[in-house]
């Protein structure tokens, strides 16, 4: 076992420590707090790479995935010992490197972006907490530890989205994010408890005793619950609720676009590296559990089928809405939702490697796009509406170039860009999915839309006439350098997983890796289809928006002019928020009003009645107290004081009278005795 495993806990602990230290600093120590954040994450990155290296080595003793765990007792109650632990396997290692690397770039970028914010120190505190929580999720070898980190991520995202809490929309968005993800987390918690009830452990891997290992899975495989559904399926679906909430899957996606209210690095952090990836990572982590299904007849377990369908629907649905958006960050947000749908689709149809590949590539290019968007916003003086931009490619050349690379990676422009390879894998998996071909078609349609809305955005922002009132400027170097690095990464990471050399696939699943150029030829058909799809999307957008570029920000979008009804639906995000407003929230409101009325009139009336009776009793008691007891007591006390004075007077200081008292007492005692005797 590599020694780094014992120190794996340091990776989340360092940012956590930094967050704690910054929390204790004064707000004006902005450079110190930034250094602490960046420094701690840089060390974490170093440790992550150190942890990554041993996982690359040849597999000892034949096949299987390399995996080291370190478990420890947390506390005992009765005979039960609750154990926590961390795990190092390829999945963790790859994610660790990605999260710390992208996170580090985002942290550096934040130095420039938050330069003018007076609460920058607080911002870095939250960022570090966020990173720590995410890294905690990654190394957890216990569903409980993962859940705890998961909730910490939720808390940190709440704090970050609401960072500009003085903006009502930001505060509302933070609340929305927190509450919506909590709904999913409820399912997660139930699944966690159920899993603990069935297997008696929450450790993933524990020398054959963990809940993801063969013995536990075999036991789960024999259990069914009401309606013939496997217990494993039910638990998996509950866990998927949590993942869907965090990863913004339909129908719990509504919080994600609103989360754009946070500062842009937050958006990048949430969408690219951390929060949304957490849901996908959770599914990848518990994949063995998801795969267990006693009723597995069609070649895919029920849980994974649900994941696939939800992913496919999300991919298309969010892409559609992205077409109708005008806010640069909102487009990216819906794009993220859509891409998360692809990841889920990949996980469900193709397994861990397929989903994770897209997760990793997406992390890089989406971080790039968000940071690029942030750069644009920063350069345009906090303007976010793409219709008010235009022609920025001259003023912001670096941003333009890197943004273009990100856009092409996202759209899946063939061969050179990472998004192409990862999306191609997903489409390939979907095309051979035994259950249905429909997700594959949905995926293709989503790809068209992706290319379309990204091209549309590019035209609005960087081409055409300039609509910005003020002069735009290129962002400072501290912001552009991360863009460049991410742009390079966005190109390169795709080559880890080409069909010819599926390194990542082999790495994650522990298969033998060999270069096979013939695999390229095998998937050539699919690659051609995918290329055509991308070209269709880009060309249609190009034709639409170069021909009929809106002359002014107020003008109608060409699509809107052609199909006002459809575009209106898309522009208003398919009225999902309104739908929730009208159903869930109204129902909730109705319930709360009912409760309020009940509380106010029924219960309160009862309480009032009881209290009135109590008051009536109390006044009787008071009267008794005042006129009977008090007077008596006062009389007593007065008597006591009188007596005290009387006794004190007895002590007149005259020794003669003292002696006289003694004599009298003697006589009195004699009299008493004689009287008693006579009786």
């Amino acid at each position, binding site marked *: 076992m590599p020694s780094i495993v014992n120190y794996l806990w340091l990776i989340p602990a360092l940012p956590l420590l930094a967050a704690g230290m910054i929390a204790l600093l004064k707000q004006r120590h902005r450079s110190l707090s930034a250094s602490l954040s960046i420094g701690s994450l840089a060390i974490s990155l170093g440790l992550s790479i150190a942890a990554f290296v041993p996982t690359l080595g040849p597999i000892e003793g034949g096949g299987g995935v390399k995996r080291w765990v370190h478990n420890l007792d947390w506390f005992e109650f009765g005979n039960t010992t609750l154990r926590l632990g961390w795990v190092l396997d390829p999945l963790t290692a790859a994610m660790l490197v990605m999260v710390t690397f992208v996170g580090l770039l985002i942290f550096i970028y934040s130095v420039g972006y938050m330069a003018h914010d007076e609460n920058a120190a607080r911002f870095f505190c939250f960022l570090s907490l966020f990173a720590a929580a995410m890294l905690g999720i990654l190394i957890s070898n216990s569903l409980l530890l993962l859940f705890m980190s998961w909730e910490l991520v939720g808390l940190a995202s709440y704090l970050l989205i609401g960072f500009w809490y003085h903006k009502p929309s930001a505060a509302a968005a933070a609340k929305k994010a927190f509450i919506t993800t909590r709904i999913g987390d409820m399912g997660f918690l139930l699944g966690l408890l159920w899993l603990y009830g069935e297997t008696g452990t929450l450790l993933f891997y524990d020398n054959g005793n963990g809940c993801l290992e063969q013995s536990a899975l075999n036991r789960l495989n024999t259990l069914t619950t009401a309606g013939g559904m496997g217990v494993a399926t039910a638990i998996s679906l509950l866990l998927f609720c949590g993942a869907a909430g965090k990863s913004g899957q339909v129908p719990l996606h509504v919080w994600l676009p609103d989360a754009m209210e946070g500062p842009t690095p937050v958006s990048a952090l949430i969408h690219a590296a951390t929060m949304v990836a957490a849901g996908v990572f959770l599914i990848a982590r518990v994949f063995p559990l998801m795969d267990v299904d006693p009723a597995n007849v069609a070649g895919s377990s029920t849980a994974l089928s649900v994941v696939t369908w939800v992913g496919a629907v999300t991919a298309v649905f969010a892409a559609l809405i992205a077409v109708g958006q005008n806010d640069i960050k909102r487009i990216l947000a819906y794009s993220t939702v859509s891409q998360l749908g692809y990841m889920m689709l990949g996980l469900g149809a193709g397994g861990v490697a397929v989903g994770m590949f897209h997760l990793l590539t997406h992390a890089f290019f989406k971080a790039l796009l968000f940071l690029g968007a942030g750069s644009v916003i920063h350069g345009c003086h906090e303007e976010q509406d793409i219709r008010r931009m235009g022609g920025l490619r001259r003023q912001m050349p670096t941003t333009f170039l890197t943004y273009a690379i990100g856009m092409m990676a996202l759209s899946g422009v063939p061969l050179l860009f990472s998004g192409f390879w990862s999306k191609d894998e997903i489409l390939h998996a979907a095309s051979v999915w035994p259950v249905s071909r429909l997700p594959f078609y949905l995926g293709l349609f989503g790809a068209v839309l992706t290319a379309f809305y990204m091209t549309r955005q590019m035209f609005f922002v960087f081409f055409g006439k300039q609509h910005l009132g003020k002069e735009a400027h290129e962002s400072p170097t501290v912001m552009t350098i991360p863009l460049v690095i991410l742009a390079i990464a966005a190109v390169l990471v795709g080559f880890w997983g080409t069909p010819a050399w599926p390194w990542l696939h082999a790495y994650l699943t522990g298969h033998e890796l060999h270069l096979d150029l013939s695999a390229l030829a095998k998937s050539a058909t699919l690659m051609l289809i995918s290329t055509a799809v991308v070209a269709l999307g880009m060309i249609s957008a190009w034709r639409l928006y170069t021909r009929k570029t809106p002359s002014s920000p107020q003008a109608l979008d060409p699509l809107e002019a052609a199909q006002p009804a459809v575009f209106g639906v898309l522009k208003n995000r398919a009225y999902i928020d309104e739908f929730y407003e009208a159903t869930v929230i109204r129902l909730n409101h109705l319930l709360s009003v009912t409760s309020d009325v009940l509380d106010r009139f029924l219960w309160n009336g009862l309480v009032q009645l009881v209290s009135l009776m109590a008051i009536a009793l109390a006044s009787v008691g008071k009267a008794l107290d005042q006129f009977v007891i008090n007077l008596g007591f006062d009389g007593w006390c007065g008597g006591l004081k009188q007596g*005290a004075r009387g*006794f004190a007077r007895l002590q007149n200081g005259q*020794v003669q009278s003292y002696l006289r008292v*003694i004599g009298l007492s*003697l006589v009195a*005692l004699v009299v008493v*005795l004689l009287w008693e*005797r006579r009786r």
Partner: protein
Amino acid sequence: MNYMELLGALAPEAIVVLTALVALAVDLLVLRQAPQNARQVVAVSITAVGILAAIIALSVAAPSPPWMDGLLINHSTTAFLKQTLLVLALVAGILSIQSRFTQHTGEYVTLLLLSTVGMMLLVSSDNLLLMFVALELTSLPLYVLTAFNKESPSSSEASLKYFLIGSLSAACLLFGISLLYGLSGGITWTQLATTLRAGSEPIVYLALILTLIGFAFKVAAAPFHLWAPDVYQGAPTPVAAFIASGSKIASFYMFARIFMAALPGTAGSAAWSGATPGWVPLVAALAVVSMILGNVAAIAQRSVKRLLAYSAIGHAGYALLAILSNTEQGMGSLLYYVVTYAVTAMGAFAVVNVIERDVQAPNGESLTDFAGLSRRSPLLSLCLLVFVLSLAGIPPLAGFFGKFYIFIATAQSGTSQGLIWLVMLAIGTSAISLYYYLQILKQVYVVESVGQPTPVQLRPAESACIVAMACTVLILGCAPNWLINRFSPNSTEVRRAGVITKPSTTLELAAEIHPRITAPLGTATGLVQKRPQFETTTANAQ
């Protein structure tokens, strides 16, 4: 009779006498010109050494058989009481270091120690003669000590009153015991117990009353309490503390022993319905008057020392309940009560001593001098809180269990709870007493001090004593069994001591006269049955 053996049995007392003489000689011969403070430290150090030696001598001494018809008895209870007395004398000595009431340090320490010797002899005598001598040896130095503050007229006045009333009481006592001797022809408890019967002649009652007056004076039971407030206030505070603590233990022990052991035939009954003449109803009368008068009159006091004097009168009333219960259980509860009360009173007086030195008022301290003490000295205030609450009988402090045991013993002693009325009265007066005890604490913790609160000057030895006493009160309250078991009738030590003091005869007679005494004494009567030979030898000896 071997005089060396007698000296061995009297070793602790001899050590204390020797210490007194050494301290006097050193002070007068060597340290005449030395500064006052040095003289005090040296004198108290010599005292401490002597007292420690005496305590060690007491703890290693084996119980000895009674000497010369009960002239001197030693067993574990007397040893424990003597040790307590010695510790209290030492504390009184330590408290008087740095006090300015006298220049005559040697004489002061000598008198203190001589009085202590008197108390030690008092607790180990079963003989009327030695009892009277010991009582006088206790009292006379205390009269002088009360007058030791020559600068204060009230000190001399108090001493004179103390002496006059003491003389009258001693006269009564002497008259009483001479009547007892005349009636019985004996001076030991055994002789008295076998002879005196209730209802024989009226002169017996006169003897009882006169004897009772002598002890009622010593324990400051009303209406023979009149000296107490003046003496407590006028005497130097360490002396007052010693009078309130050490003198009380010795006198109460002798009080209880002479009536319980020597005069069981004349006990009578104090039951609410059906009182019969005897010393029990007399004690009950004193107890009732003491509890009411002490606790009520304390309310009107403005000086804490006077307040403590009246509180002492009230406490004497509670202790009298234990005596009139007239059982071994009552004896145990009495000893627990007086020992814990002595420690508590000594502690309270020690705090008063500090405050008195601090304010330097010409007329002594008053209640308002304690205002804001909690800010001036939190430690002292906390200790005072412990002492005062213990006096008031708040659990878990020792004072609570003292009262508790006494009430239990009293309630169980009379036929069909005939004495329960006394317990009810005692509980009622305890409630009244809370008022004036809380007055002290109100001054300490609630009332703001006048002007800027300045820290109270405390000497290390003094504060160590005060803290130790506060801890003792707390510990005895938390673990009352440790102390009460030493005095319990089930304790093997007391049983052994009982054999030595020939209780079988007494108990047998008591059982004859008053069957109710035997009920709580099952073990002791069992002892009688187990030792028939012993009884025969006793009978032969008589």
